[in-house]
């Protein structure tokens, strides 16, 4: 096991493949049929970049990842929790992951996952209406957005307004096809980028090919 440049994320070589790993908070249990590797009593879970946009971004040599052990993260669009489970591993026992989705169907799976992870909270809420949950939550260090909606940038910014700490970080998966199928993806990314630039400093933009088609992975930081 080798620590990568991102704290909490490890890698190892197996059959000529470079695997991404996190230290498992749940031992050998694997809810997503992911492989686990045991080394000297520490269990690692194998993170498949083809199933996770964050995994893909790391496999594509993302330069800086604001998700680090011990911080608080709000995750919008958590779905059944594949990516969130790895974020939870990275944050470790001292961190906190608030995972939110508006589909009862997937939140049931997410809830069962969350019960096993003491640093994770599952919420059934609509990310378009942060006013309904902002008061209940603490301010967070980082917001991760993957809701695949037409107004995803606006959704992110609304949440950042009420829940992100000053100088906190944002991570956005921009899916060009959910925003406008008729436009060239690059045009879409530029439009979303200029919306963000009013209140955020753009740290990096990464294209997720070949893992995900027409996705841009944006890292930004709140100006104040």
């Amino acid at each position: 096991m080798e620590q990568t440049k991102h704290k909490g994320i490890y890698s190892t070589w197996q059959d000529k493949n470079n695997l991404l790993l996190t230290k498992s908070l749940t031992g050998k249990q694997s809810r997503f049929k992911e492989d686990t590797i045991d080394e000297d009593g520490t269990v690692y879970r194998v993170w498949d970049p083809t199933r996770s946009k964050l995994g893909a971004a790391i496999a594509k040599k993302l330069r800086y990842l604001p998700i680090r052990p011990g911080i608080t993260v709000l995750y919008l669009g958590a779905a059944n929790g594949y990516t969130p489970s790895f974020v939870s591993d990275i944050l470790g026992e001292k961190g906190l992951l608030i995972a939110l989705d508006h589909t009862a169907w997937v939140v049931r799976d997410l809830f069962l996952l969350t019960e096993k992870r003491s640093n994770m909270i599952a919420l059934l809420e609509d990310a378009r209406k942060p006013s309904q949950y902002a008061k209940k939550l603490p301010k967070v260090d980082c917001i991760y957005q993957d809701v695949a909606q037409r107004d995803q940038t606006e959704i992110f910014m609304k949440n950042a307004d009420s829940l992100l700490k000053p100088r906190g970080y944002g991570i956005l998966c921009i899916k060009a096809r959910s925003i406008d199928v008729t436009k060239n993806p690059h045009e879409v990314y530029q439009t979303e980028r200029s919306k963000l630039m009013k209140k955020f400093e753009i740290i990096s933009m990464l294209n997720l090919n070949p893992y995900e088609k027409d996705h841009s992975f944006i890292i930004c930081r709140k100006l104040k």
Partner: protein
Amino acid sequence: MKQAITLRKELMQETKERLKTSINEETMLIQMYQTVRELEHTINNLMIKLKNWFSCYLPEIYTTKTQQEALDIILSDSIEESKQKLNLKDSIGTINRTGYEQTIKFAKSIQTLIKTKELIEEQIEETTTKIAPSICNEISGKTLAQLLTKVGTIKRLANMPSSAIQLLGAEKALFRHLQNNRNNPPKYGLLAGEVQAKTPKERAKKTKQLSAKVTLAARKDYYGTNKT
């Protein structure tokens, strides 16, 4: 840190309560509809296998026209009766081969699946008529359930413009049209299955009329006063 623990406890309890009340009749309909579609597909495949296998004993089984007819013949009391039902004096097959008993067991299982599918279909009709009687005056409960798999709830259907309802189920064609203007825009979606028409033009017109009716009915069912 202690604070985080209590916060988690409270919020998780709240989510649990919400999950309990979040399952509505529409969710059930969507599950039932998807199960019926899956069963239809599976039953078709299993019937092909069954006929292939049974044809070793009685090749004439291929002359049957419908699935139910084939099943009725296979599930006779004896192979003699099967032959009679097919009006055969003699068969070119070989009846005394191993596995005959097992094919019958297999056929019975398919029969059970068909029964289950029919029961679910009845339940779909019952539930849809209960939650949306006006819509069910215009289209079958099964089609309504199919619409619900696209939009989720009667409420959303009631808030949609008729033109959008008309195109539900034609999303692929619509996106193709929007991406490159060479393709014509689609004129109808899954509601077209509910109308009788000879030409595509007529179908488009009738589907348009039907979606207008469904739209009104949805608003009546959702916003109407005599709502149960």
